[in-house]
């Protein structure tokens, strides 16, 4: 094999290219680990820690920052490639007690200052271009809605939460070069149940929570550059080298996010530190860009190759999902890695091939392309147990109906989901028309939290807890009325329509595989974001499509005409009444005609008696 690789000297400078050839030999999914005796399993220790808390990995230098980076590549059943980057910076500074910290090592100062100034407990922000197709791609590691999403938990010491939120959105708008300054009271809600803190601390008073989405936000290079600047190595070294916008934005789906939350410093959780998790997810469509060759490599996807790990990183790893490929029947990895890892992600036990970039041996091998005919991988994708979609029904510009359909694909278990809908005020929801039906029967939500909108002040907020019966579709419908706005309130392209942010469906989905609630040290980053408190269920958040709704529009070209015409009608009313009110009836005395009057004037000048 090695001699075969060395035959192509052109690629010798490439340290690592993972080229995968899909060679479908059988469609029988094989169990992980079978026939892989020669491979080594990644060491994992089961620690006895408080479940539900992510623990920062112990670091050789105590009381300093640590940084980890990780890339997960998963070939999807649709033939696309899903690449997920996770960068985690842990800052051992405790803000919860009001400390002001001015010393920064790895943690980006711009964000650190924002957090301390605005007393932020948790901050989650995501920018997404494209819509995640759950039924084709499965569940993402970290879900995000199209457009921008921001949700923040403030410390309970904040008194003016709305003012702080306004300021914070403006600052973040500057940091991320995004239109977050368009977040105001008309698109901010305070969910009562759907967004719980993901870090330590049991604050559940939703007065300190603010949630907003901008479904219309376009994500592009100007958002990526400041995001990359937050990394300790920037885009100079490590996995971030791959993040070049010309390829990244040429993808079917792109999502970048920043999550800041407090986590336990050690297993006893006496003090907390701050975790900054930067994630970037992209789905590459290699069918169209690969010229009918079903081969992919890091170079093909990113048009860059890895040169070295970030020197500041305590761990730098690439995980390739080989669950469906344990024997190399669908694709071959080159260079092959002897290190394997197993992790339970979203209720599914997956096997990964691991490449450790801190290990210099990884960069030693080179490879050459291998040409083989490829076929579609045939096999059953594990259907996501929870899936949702949404659409607007009805015609005309007067009323409409929002339909949200939630699917439970579990064959025999029902589970509750929490549906959150934030609808702008100009779609006036009628809550009495709310119906929830599953399998043709009414399914009464066990909890409804509804906050009606105020015109030009706040949106509708609808949260409800619905039990989804097994193997069913549950449909939630609610009617709305479209408002006519003032002409200055329309967007510059009013007939394009108005976006309504995605519904958020959060649920604890029963798992077929026991999730490891005891956090091991070596657990990959992507599998350990949402706190997991139960073994037999896992947390899933699903975002539906955003809606595009047309509103009736006035004629924008004629404000003057309308003002003039309406005032004329009022004046006609006023004038005719004024006429009748102030004048009285009199007998008309005939007035002489114009010619006669002129003649009389002339006659008077001549001294002749008038006619």
């Amino acid at each position, binding site marked *: 094999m090695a001699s075969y690789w060395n035959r192509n000297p052109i690629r010798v400078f490439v340290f690592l290219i993972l080229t995968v050839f899909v060679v479908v030999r059988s469609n029988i999914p094989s169990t992980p680990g079978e026939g892989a005796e020669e491979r080594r399993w990644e060491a994992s220790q089961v620690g006895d820690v408080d479940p539900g808390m992510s623990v920062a990995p112990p670091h050789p230098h105590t009381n300093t920052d640590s940084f980890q980076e990780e890339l997960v590549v998963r070939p999807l059943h649709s033939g696309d490639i899903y690449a997920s980057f996770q960068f985690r910076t842990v800052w051992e500074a405790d803000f919860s007690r009001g400390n002001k910290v001015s010393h920064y090592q790895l943690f980006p100062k711009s964000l650190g200052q924002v957090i301390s100034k605005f007393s932020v407990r948790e901050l989650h922000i995501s920018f997404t271009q494209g819509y995640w197709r759950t039924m084709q791609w499965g569940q993402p590691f970290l879900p995000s809605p199209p457009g921008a999403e921001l949700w923040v938990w403030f410390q309970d010491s904040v008194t003016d939460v709305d003012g702080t939120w306004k300021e914070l959105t403006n600052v973040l708008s500057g940091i991320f070069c995004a239109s977050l300054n368009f977040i105001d009271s008309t698109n901010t809600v305070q969910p009562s149940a759907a967004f719980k803190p993901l870090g330590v601390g049991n604050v559940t008073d939703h007065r300190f929570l603010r949630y907003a989405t901008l479904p219309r936000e376009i994500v592009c290079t100007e958002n990526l550059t400041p995001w990359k600047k937050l990394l300790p190595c920037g885009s100079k070294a490590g996995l971030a080298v791959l993040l070049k916008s010309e390829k990244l934005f040429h993808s079917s789906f792109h999502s970048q996010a920043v999550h800041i939350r407090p986590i336990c410093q050690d297993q006893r959780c006496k003090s907390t530190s701050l975790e900054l998790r930067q994630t970037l997810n992209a789905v590459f469509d290699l069918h169209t860009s690969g010229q009918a060759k079903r081969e992919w490599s890091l170079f093909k996807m990113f048009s860059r190759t890895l040169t070295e790990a970030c020197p500041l990183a305590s761990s730098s790893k690439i995980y390739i999902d080989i669950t469906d490929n344990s024997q190399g029947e669908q694709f071959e990895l080159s260079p092959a890695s002897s290190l394997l890892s197993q992790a339970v992600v979203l209720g599914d036990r997956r096997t990964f091939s691991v490449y450790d970039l801190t290990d210099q041996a990884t960069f030693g091998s080179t490879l050459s392309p291998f040409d083989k005919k490829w076929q579609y991988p045939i096999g059953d994708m594990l259907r996501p147990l929870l899936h949702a979609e949404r659409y607007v029904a009805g015609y005309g510009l*007067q009323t409409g109906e929002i339909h949200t359909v939630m699917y439970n694909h579990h064959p025999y278990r029902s589970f509750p989901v929490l549906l959150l809908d934030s609808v702008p005020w100009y779609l006036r929801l009628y809550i009495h028309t709310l119906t929830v039906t599953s399998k043709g029967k009414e399914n009464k939500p066990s909890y409804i939290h509804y906050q009606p909108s105020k015109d030009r002040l706040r949106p509708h907020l609808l949260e409800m807890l619905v039990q989804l019966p097994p193997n069913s579709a549950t449909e939630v419908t609610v009617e709305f009325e479209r408002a006519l706005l003032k002409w200055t309130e329309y967007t510059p392209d009013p007939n394009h329509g108005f976006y309504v942010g995605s519904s958020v469906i959060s649920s604890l989905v029963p798992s077929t595989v026991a999730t490891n609630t005891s956090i091991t040290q070596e657990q990959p980053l992507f599998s350990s974001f949402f706190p997991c408190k139960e073994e037999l269920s896992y947390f899933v958040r699903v975002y539906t499509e955003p809606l595009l709704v047309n509103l009736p529009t*006035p004629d924008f070209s004629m404000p003057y005409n309308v*003002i003039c015409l309406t005032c004329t009608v009022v004046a006609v009313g006023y004038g005719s009444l004024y006429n*009748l009110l102030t004048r009285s009836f009199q007998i008309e005395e005939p007035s002489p005609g114009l010619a006669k009057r002129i003649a009389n004037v002339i006659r008077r000048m001549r001294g002749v008696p008038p006619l």
Partner: protein
Amino acid sequence: MAAPLTLLLVVAVTVRALLSSSALQQLIAERVEVVSPISAWKRVIEGLALLDLGVSPYSGDVFHETPLIIYLFHFVVDYAEITFILADVIAAVALYISVKDYNKQVFRKQKFALEADRYPMDCLELIRSPKEMHYIPLKVAMFYLLNPFTVLSCVAKATCGLNNAVLALFILATIKGNMLLSAIFLCLATYQSIYPLTLCVPAMLYLMQRQYIPVNPRRFGFWWFVAQYLFMYVGSLFVLVCLSFFLLGSWDFLSSVYGFILSVPDLTPNIGLFWYFFAEMFEHFRLFFLCVFQINVFFYTIPLSIKLKDHPVFLIFMQLAVISIFKSYPTVGDLALYLAFLPMWSHLHRFLRNLFLVSCVLLACSALFPVLWHLWIYAGSANSNFYYAITLLFNVAQILLVSDYFYAFLRREHHLTYGLYLKRTDGSEATLVLK
């Protein structure tokens, strides 16, 4: 006389019941001409649903009716159709009785004047006979009950039907001379939609004339009466507002009901002048024009009361018309109330100048409203200007109608004083002009 009225009521109730139970009900209930953001039944139901969810109905911007309405429908929501039909029947019967009573008084006054020989000799043509006045009450009831506008409003369960019933009862109480009931009903109407506030003046004028109190600001009796009436009116208003406060335990309803009526934040199209004007208004002139338009409704009270101080019932008609034209969220139900009074002024027909034109325009507009609405909202082949143009025309027609009746009324009064066939100084036939 009771038999025709009963027949009329039976017919009216049947028509309403049939329409309510037909598929047309849904269609009618969504028409913007029939329901406004305040009076829409859908919004009342929404308010009830919000109450059931434990949310204050006034915390949102959908429900704008008064707390008493929501309290009423809390009990009778299952019998809503019957309630609205009953309201129409009550309104019609109240109008019937009050017109009958009023006609009696008119006739008596006319008799006194004839006996006192106050009318000029050639005015006998203008004298009203009991024969022609006999059917007027029935005609008024018929105009109210069988008017398509009233029927639509009732079938759509627009709460302005209730307001009309209260106003009809107010008119009945006033004409019957019951000061307390008059004040209470007027207060109920004001409580629901502010604008009937201007009817205070005609009510006081009428009651004073009935009690032979001279309408003279220099007399103590005048002010004493005004104080009494206003005390009853403001007192019952105070009681109502406090009652509303205790029903819901918050003052939110004040801004949500009255603030909503006065500041016009909801620009849903209707038959009035406000919606498109304020949709197209420049932001920094909004407050100014809002004040101008709202003052416009109340402003006519003073000059009209001075001009018509001897004819308070005609003044009530004028005020109702002005309110229904210039109010912020008018519906056809508001129109129906003052249109019902038209048979009362049938003796003015010989002086009307453009009744034919105005009726044609009103009819054509009523037909064009749904057509242009469809073209704008559903077909997309027209835009908002089409619908707006029709609202303009509709309002011009209403204004012409009202001012024509006003003109005819003033002219008849003039003729009753100066004679019907006026002569110029040189003896030739004269024409009357306004100067």
